């Protein structure tokens, strides 16, 4: 601001006059005392304690004094600034305390007011349950395989050892697919996720450890427990030296991961063309753990007091399937399973009616959120 002062005339430096310094100090202290709130105090700080405040400007003039006068002036100005700084600090503390006590209280809002301007949506619980089921197997090292929903009959049936005239083939209640002009296509809506077994064997290097969740289709009318469109999780392992014991181990891991530790499982001999031997899989009822069996006092809705819940079918991959998929059954063996995703959801979350899963009512999906 100023060029070197050669005149050394102290009287010309008015701001450093003792009276002037005292006045500036008094003015500042008065303003500080008068500040009613933190905002006003901020203004006061700018006016009286910033680089542009009168005391700061006065301080800069000290250099213009003759050396003998500098110490004295410095002491006066410094003292004034220190007093102002302390007063500011003290007033700041007072006003902050006052704010904490009064203003913040006055500013309170009703935090129970809603803010659902844009409500969240939800994923379908079948989607998230299918992911959860698959993830349990992914955790064991499995990968997730996929296949088409409109599938060639050969993949859906023949390659899986459903012979053309065998009752098992007609029992599947198949949707047959025609071309747009009504011609034969050799295609069906896949009746199960099992064709993915064959596709996985044809497209992947051995050994194969995969699960395949997906949509499946049968000509069942929609009712409380049936739907023409439903979902399965297929599992397939083909490796050397694979046994039913490994299948049971995988099923146990799934049941424990999905429904709870320590639940027992049970295999019942059954029949599927693409597995031999075959089994139905039951798990111990996770709700009553068998306590409802023969105990009419404490009936169980989950298992109808049976103690067991059927969760799917499984078995040793029929060597004929391996052959049709170009795998040497003399070297490799495997197992496969199919678990119902609707069933799993019904059990895991007490869904009672299939309609809820297909109608798309937002009340149903909303209850589940995006992950369950």
């Amino acid at each position, binding site marked *: 601001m100023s060029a070197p002062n050669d005149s050394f005339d102290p009287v010309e430096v008015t701001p450093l006059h003792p009276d002037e310094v005292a006045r500036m100090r008094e003015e500042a202290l008065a303003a500080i005392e008068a500040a009613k709130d933190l905002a006003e105090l901020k203004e006061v700080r700018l006016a009286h304690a910033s680089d542009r405040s009168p005391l700061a400007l006065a301080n800069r003039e000290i250099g213009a004094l003759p050396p003998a006068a500098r110490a004295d002036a410095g002491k006066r100005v410094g003292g004034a600034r220190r007093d102002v700084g302390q007063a500011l600090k003290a007033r700041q503390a007072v006003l902050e305390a006052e704010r904490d006590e009064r203003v913040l209280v006055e500013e309170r809002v009703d935090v129970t007011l809603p803010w659902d301007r844009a409500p969240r949506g939800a994923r379908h619980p079948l989607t998230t349950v299918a992911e959860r089921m698959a993830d349990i197997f992914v955790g064991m090292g499995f990968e997730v395989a996929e296949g088409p929903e409109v599938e060639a009959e050969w993949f859906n049936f023949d390659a899986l050892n459903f012979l053309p005239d065998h009752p098992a083939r007609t029992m599947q209640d198949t949707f047959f697919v025609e071309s747009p002009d009504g011609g034969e*296509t050799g295609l069906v809506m896949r009746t199960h996720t099992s064709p993915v077994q064959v596709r996985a064997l044809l497209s992947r290097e051995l050994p194969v450890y995969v699960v395949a969740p997906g949509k499946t289709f049968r000509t069942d009318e929609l009712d409380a427990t049936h739907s023409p469109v439903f979902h399965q999780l297929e599992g397939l392992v083909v490796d050397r030296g694979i046994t039913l014991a490994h299948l049971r181990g995988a099923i146990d891991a799934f049941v424990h991961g999905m429904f709870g530790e320590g639940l027992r499982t049970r295999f019942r001999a059954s029949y599927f063309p693409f597995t031999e031997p075959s089994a139905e899989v039951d798990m111990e009822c996770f709700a009553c753990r068998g306590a409802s069996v023969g105990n009419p006092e404490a009936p169980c809705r989950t298992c109808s007091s049976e103690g067991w819940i059927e969760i799917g079918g499984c078995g040793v991959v029929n060597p004929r399937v391996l*052959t049709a998929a170009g795998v040497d059954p003399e070297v490799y063996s495997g197992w496969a399973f199919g678990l119902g995703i609707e069933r799993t959801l019904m059990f895991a979350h007490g869904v009672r009616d299939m309609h809820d899963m*297909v109608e798309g009512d937002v009340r149903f999906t909303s209850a589940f959120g995006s992950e369950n």
Partner: protein
Amino acid sequence: MRVPMSWLREYVALPSDVTARDLAAKLTLAGLEVETVDELGSDISGPVVVGRVLEIEELTGFKKPIRFCRVDVGPANGTGEPQEIVCGARNFGEGDLVVVSLPGAELAGGFRIGARKTYGRMSAGMICSAPELGLWEDPDGIIVLPEGFGEVGTDAIGPLGLREDVLDIAVTPDRGYALSMRGVARDVAALYGVDFRDPAAVETAEPTGGGHPAEVDPKVCDRYVLRGATGFDPQAPTPMWMRRRLHHSGVRPISLAVDVTNYVMLELGQPLHAWDRGRLRGALTVRPAAQGEKLETLDHVQRALDPDDIVIADQTGPVNIAGVMGGLSTEISLTTTEVLVEAGHFEAMHIARTSRRHQLSSESSRRFERGIDSAVQLAAATRAVELLAELGGATVEGAYTHVDQTTPRTPIRVGAAHAGAVAGVDYPEGTTEKWLRLLGCEVEADGDTLAVTPPTWRPDLTDPNDLAEEVIRLEGYENIPSVPPRAPAGRGLTASQRLRRAVGRTLAATGYNEVLSYPFVGERDLDGLQLEADDARRVSLRLANPLNDEEPLLRTTLLPGLFKALVRNVGRGFPDVALFEMGLVYRPKPGSTRAPLLPVDRGPSAEELRQIDAALPDQPRRVGAVLAGDVERAGWWGQGRRACWADAIQVARDIARVAGVELEVEADQHAPWHPGRCAALYTRVDGERVLVGHAGELHPRTVKAFSLPERSAAVEVDLDRMEGARAETVAPEVSTYPVATQDVALIVDEAVPAGAVGDALAAGAGDLLESVRLFDVYTGEQVGEGRKSVAFTLRFRAADRTLTAEESAAARDAAVAEAVERTGATPRA
């Protein structure tokens, strides 16, 4: 298959303390799934006793004839006096033995018997009919017991066999043998390690001569037996024990001759046919039907036959569809005295096709389809004619027809340790031989290999694993240990699978609820979408057998299903609704041919797989969303905001963002969208623009056709294509130098899309540009008619220095110059 326990025990020395429920549990684990255990008669309680009708007084003056009876029930009523009972039935006389339920008894269905006044008399009890006791339907009236049934006054519940536990077994398609008492009994005996008496061990003497002549085509039938019974009394009643067993087995008793064939079928698993021999003309032939042949079957349906059908023909033509249903003209009747019983082993495949084509599923066809014993025919026919003789006074003819064209089965070679290797269990030596022999297999050991010849009643046993299953199930599936699988390290989910999850979560987070609608649509839906006649989305695959004739097509777009779900929610009181679906649509490939049925004795070749692939439709994964009502609600904060075209487009932008793909938006006209509020959505792959979908407000005609709320908006994008545009992400350099912000306002012709102006600014701004964002659009007097002002914020930043005011101004000017050049914009003063 319904299995009465008392019948089963005739063949199996089952310990008496084994209950029906115990057995059911054991059978279920071993592969014969017992669906229910019916405890028949458990609701009946006494006193139900044998009585003798002493006196009948006919009451008159009522709408129907009524009898007042005095019935001797011995000491059962406590007094020894005759019991007075009013009865409406008329099929009995004085002196007949009947079943009497006394007051205090409870009959089938919780029907309590008491003494009550009826038709002007006191009736103290009831003379019982069969249905009242939980037995068969009987139009005749009450049960008249045969003389000698039991002492008057003694309990009738036990001797009548009213209490019976019946197992209902759901037989899997491979276990045809279990559709017989014989087959179930053999498994039960093996499971309990007890003795089994084979009901098929019937003594059959050599024929005394040729029976009814028959010529049998070995291609359709490899064993054929005809046995005659003469002098049969067609009026002879079916004895009560047989009726009861048939009834408990779910078969309706009809007449003795028919009942006997059904009974033997249940017992041995061999379906039989009985002809009125007098109605047959000459020799029988067993052969494929000739094209054009016809037959009127027992159900009075005239059926056109096909060479896949096996027929039995006499000189006049077909008289039976073999194994499926008999012909009407040779049916056994109430005057038949000469009975010819047929037992054949017909080719399963033919029966299956016949049953399917004629939609005729019978007890007989079910058994043939699954495979029956190829050696039991003579025993079955003999058992039947002997029963006709015993119960119907007939004489069994010593001469009979037995055509045997069977070939012996080749043994299955299987390792002795195979079953253990399949199960993962170390079974003791000899385990396999033990069980297979119990099931009737012949087993010859040759070192570690077994040569196993399955019995004639197990055509399902063809492969080593079939034998393994038998061993493992008899050893007990419950004994298979649990060993964790040892998969090699997996690679986790694929990028595509992860993307789907992320898209689903994002849409849910932005307010959309996921639906999973059926992929079935109808022409009406396509019309409702306002699709032109040549629109590719009209080319859809169709179901040959749709559940709903109105919806025979497979969807080519997700929108109709979403629309219906939206309307459903609105109808249920949710006017503000946003839905999404992620799923496949089916787009037939032009000129595709029928998918081949490939061989199964080897893997398919690459060419064969290509043929199958060519026949399959494209099945891209789509994401669709639809929304209506308020997307932002009104509330104490102020007004809500209606869903609009922009929300729909934002869905696509959000998906692109999740995928890390640049989305280009352009105005388009595309059904079912509003022609002025429809965006085509593009990405770029190797610089080429790829259409990924459309979004915007729906056409008012579509809104009307689907009864949607007005101004509903929708989007549909192809996730597979979106995914195809993904590229490896290269991390940006994040500069820590300050940003320099420049706002520009440009006036352009109203027709110029704001997006084009933004693109031009971005293109002209050079490398220093960090972002460009439109923040205002203004139309009005100040900018003039037909013009609009679009205002953008440009943010500039350098990687290596603080930009000077001059630098950022120069970059801004370059951006504006490019916009002026491309869009004819003029900078707003």
